C-alpha cells in the first residue's frame, strides 16, 4: 500500500522548512533507516530517514523548495509491486526521525505544534523612516550583535555552542566566521563559571555578551548576575561598572515542561542595578539588543524561542537603536488597555483583533522594557481607556502583572473604572502534556475573557 511521506517537524517549534536535497530518486528501493532527504530548518540541516520499506514512487516536493509547511506530503513510498497509479489513494504517514509507540495516534506525531504562532507584523517603527527588510527575529538579533561587534573591538560573544555550532538556536550564525575564535567563544557547560568570568572581563573594561542557551540554565549563574554584576556599581560608590549583556531565550518553548519553561522577567526585574528588556518583534530584537550592548550597565535581554523564527519588517540601518525604558503602543484603542511583553504581545494583538469584531477597541502596549518600566505610557493609556489587563507567561505571585497593578494604583487610580486584571501563567510548574500546557499558558481566549470582564461585557 502506498504511503505518503509528510514534511516532518524536526524541532518542537518548527512550522516549515526547505527540502535541501533528495538523496534518493524516484524508483530507488528504500529500507527503514535510509536517509531520504536533507531538510533545512531555520536552525539546522536535518536528515529525513525512511520509516517504511518500499520504492520511492514519487517525489512530490522537489529539491530546493523552501517554506514547505510541516505535514505537507513530500513523497510517496510504494509497496513491492505497486505502481505510481496508487499514489492518489496513499494515506498520510510521516517519516519522523524517531518512531513513536503504536498506541499513540499518528495525529500526535504528524501535527505541527499545537500553538504554532500566527504571524502578526506590527507597524514599522514610527520614528524610523529608513529602509526596512523582512527578517526573522533570529536574524535581527544576529545582525544586532554583528553590527555592534564591527564597531567595538571590546565586544565579544561567549556561551555554550555559540561559535562552531553557531548557536543552539542559530542566533550566532556566521559570527565565528566573521569575527574569529577570539571574539566568539565556545564555553564549556559551566554557567556559574562563565557568567562570573564575563563579569570579571566586564569589570576589566571588555564588553561581554554572554549567551545562556536558555535562561532556565542561568539560575546557576544567578549569584554572579545579581551579586557580582548588578550590585558592584553601588558597592563601589560609582567607581566600577559592569557593562555586560546576558541574553538568551526566556519563557516557555513547546513541550519542554517545567524545568525548561520559565519566565524570569519578574526575577530580574526585581533587582536594582540591572536593566531588563524583553523584545517581541524583529525591530524590538535588533533595537533593544543593540541598546543593551551599548549600555554601560548589566542588561538582561529576555528573548523567546518561539519568536526566533517569526518574520517581521526590521529597520535595515545599523544606526537603528531603541531606547531602553520605553514601551511601544502596538495598537491604539480607546476602550481598554492590554499590556504585555515578549511572545504575549502577539497573543494580546490577536485578542485585540478578536475583540474588535465584538465592538471592543483595545489598546495594546508592548512593554519592550521590564526595568526600567515605562510608567508614563502605561499611566497615559489607563487615563485614556480607564481599564487595564496585563498579560504574561510568568506566574501571578509577585509577577510583572502585580507591578502593573501597583503602577495603576500609584499613577492612575482615579481613572480606573474596573479592577486591574492579570492574565498569567497558571500558578503551577509547567506541565508536559499538550492539553495541560495549553491550559497553563495565557491564550487569546483567556485574554479576551479578562478584557470583557473589565469592560463589564
Amino acid at each position, binding site marked *: 500500500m502506498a504511503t505518503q511521506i509528510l514534511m516532518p517537524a524536526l524541532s518542537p517549534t518548527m512550522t516549515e522548512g526547505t527540502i535541501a536535497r533528495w538523496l534518493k530518486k524516484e524508483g530507488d528501493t528504500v529500507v527503514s533507516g535510509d536517509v531520504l532527504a536533507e531538510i533545512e530548518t531555520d536552525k539546522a540541516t536535518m536528515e529525513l530517514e525512511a520509516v517504511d520499506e518500499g520504492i520511492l514512487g514519487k517525489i512530490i516536493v522537489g529539491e530546493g523548495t523552501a517554506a514547505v509547511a510541516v505535514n505537507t506530503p513530500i513523497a510517496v513510498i510504494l509497496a513491492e509491486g505497486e505502481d505510481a497509479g496508487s499514489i492518489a489513494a496513499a494515506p498520510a504517514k510521516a517519516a519522523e526521525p524517531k518512531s513513536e509507540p503504536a498506541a499513540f495516534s499518528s495525529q500526535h506525531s504528524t501535527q505541527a505544534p499545537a500553538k504554532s504562532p500566527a504571524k502578526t507584523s506590527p507597524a514599522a517603527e514610527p520614528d524610523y523612516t529608513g529602509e526596512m527588510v523582512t527578517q526573522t527575529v533570529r536574524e535581527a538579533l544576529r545582525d544586532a550583535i554583528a553590527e555592534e561587534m564591527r564597531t567595538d573591538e571590546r565586544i565579544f560573544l561567549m556561551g555554550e555552542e555559540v561559535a562552531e555550532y553557531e548557536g543552539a538556536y542559530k542566533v550566532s550564525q556566521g559570527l565565528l566566521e566573521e569575527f574569529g575564535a577570539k571574539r566568539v567563544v565556545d564555553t564549556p557547560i*559551566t554557567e556559574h563559571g562563565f557568567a*562570573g568570568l564575563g563579569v*570579571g572581563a566586564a569589570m576589566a573594561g571588555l564588553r561581554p555578551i554572554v549567551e545562556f542557551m536558555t535562561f532556565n540554565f542561568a539560575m546557576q549563574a544567578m549569584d554572579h548576575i545579581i551579586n*557580582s554584576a548588578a550590585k558592584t556599581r553601588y558597592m563601589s560608590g560609582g567607581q566600577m561598572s559592569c557593562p555586560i549583556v546576558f541574553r538568551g531565550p526566556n519563557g516557555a518553548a513547546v513541550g519542554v515542561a517545567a524545568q525548561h519553561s520559565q519566565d524570569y522577567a519578574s526575577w530580574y526585574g526585581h533587582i536594582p542595578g540591572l536593566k531588563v528588556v524583553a523584545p517581541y518583534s524583529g525591530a524590538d530584537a535588533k533595537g533593544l539588543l543593540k541598546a543593551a550592548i551599548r549600555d554601560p550597565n548589566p542588561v538582561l535581554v529576555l528573548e523567546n524561542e518561539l519568536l526566533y523564527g517569526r518574520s517581521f519588517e526590521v529597520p535595515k540601518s545599523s544606526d537603528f537603536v531603541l531606547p531602553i525604558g520605553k514601551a511601544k503602543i502596538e495598537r491604539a484603542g480607546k476602550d481598554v488597555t492590554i499590556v504585555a511583553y515578549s511572545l504575549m504581545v502577539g497573543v494580546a494583538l490577536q485578542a485585540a483583533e478578536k475583540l474588535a469584531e465584538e465592538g471592543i477597541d483595545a489598546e495594546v502596549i508592548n512593554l519592550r522594557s521590564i526595568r526600567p518600566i515605562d510608567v508614563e505610557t502605561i499611566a497615559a493609556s489607563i487615563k485614556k481607556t480607564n481599564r487595564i489587563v496585563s498579560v504574561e507567561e510568568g506566574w501571578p505571585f509577585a509577577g510583572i502583572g502585580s507591578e502593573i497593578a501597583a503602577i495603576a494604583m500609584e499613577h492612575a487610580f482615579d481613572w480606573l473604572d474596573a479592577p486591574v486584571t492579570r492574565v498569567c501563567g497558571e500558578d503551577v510548574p509547567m506541565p508536559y502534556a499538550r492539553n495541560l500546557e495549553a491550559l497553563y499558558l495565557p491564550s487569546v481566549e483567556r485574554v479576551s475573557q479578562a478584557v470583557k470582564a473589565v469592560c463589564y461585557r
Partner: protein
Amino acid sequence: MAKTAVARQGKRGGANELSPEQLKKFLRDMLLIRRFEEKAGQLYGMGLIYGFCHLYIGQEAVVVGMQAAAEPGKDSVVTSYRDHGHMLATGMDPKGVMAELTGRRTGYSRGKGGSMHMFSTERKFYGGHGIVAAQVPIGTGLAFAHKYSNDGGASMVYYGDGAANQGQVYESFNMAALWKLPAVYVIENNRYGMGTSVARASATGDLHKRGAAYGIPNEAVDGMDVLAVYEAGQRALAHARSGKGPYILGVETYRYRGHSMSDPAKYRSREEVSKIRSEQDPIDRIRQMLLNDGDATEEEVKKIDADVKAIVTEAAEFAQQSPEPDLSELYTDVLVEA
C-alpha cells in the same frame, strides 16, 4: 627551628638578589597591615565599624610576598571579604580604606560598600567580594581580559580554604587551563573556613593539588615566610605571563583572630594560636632576620614601626572625622547614567 635557614635561602629572592631595602619594605608592608587591622579591631570594639569585619592578622606575608612579585598597575588583584590587607598591599590609601570601614563619604566606596566591598580601578584591585568564591570566576575573567587585550598582565586570584570547596572554583580552573589564561590562584589556607577546619571540610587537605585534575601546575608554599611567598609568586607569575596558562599556589597560613569580629573561636585552642604566633609569626621572622644579618639596626626597625603607627593613627582619625555620606547618596550609583 629551621626558619633562619629558610629565610637565608629565601633572601636570594629567586631570580633577583633582595636588597636590605627590599627586605625592610617587606617588614614595613606587613606591619602596616597588622597595625591597620589592630586599629580596625579597636574601632570595631568602639562601635565605629559595624557589620562584618574580617581581620587579616597573621596572614600578612601572603599578600605582601605575592604583591611584591607583581607589577603594580599591570597585574589585577581580586579577593574575598577578608580584603583589607590586599588593598593596602596594592597601594591603596589606608585613609580611604579605614574611612570605608567607618562608613564615611571619604571611603573608597563613599560609604556604600563597607569592609567587604571596596575597589580601586587605579590600583587594579577589583574587590572585595562578599560571596565565598565568587571572586574566583571574576578573577578568571580579569585574566581573560588580560589575554584578550594582550597587555602582558596577569590576574592574581586570592581565595581561602573554605572557598576551595565551591564548585565555581573548578569551573574556573577548567576554563583558565583550557584557554591558557594568565591567572595565579592563591589559596590562602588559614586552616579554618569560619569554624570548620580543613580536615572537617575537605576530603583532601592539599587544596592546590586539585589543580592537577586540570593540568595546572601547583605547589605548596609556607605562607608564614614572606620570602618563600615572594619566590613562589615570581615563579607563578612568570608561568602565567609566558602564555602557559594558570598556576596555583597553596599557601599555608594562619589567622590569629576569629573569622569575623563576632567569632568566639571555640573550634581551636588558645595554645594552638599562641604557639603559631610565637614560633612562626611572619613579621617577627623578617624582623629577626634583618637584625641578625645586620641588614637593619634596632633603631631602623623601631622607626619603621613608628612610621607605620603614625600612618594608621592618621587613617583612624581621618575615618572618624570624615562626615557620613549625604542622605541623597542612597539613590546614586545604582546605574551608570549613560
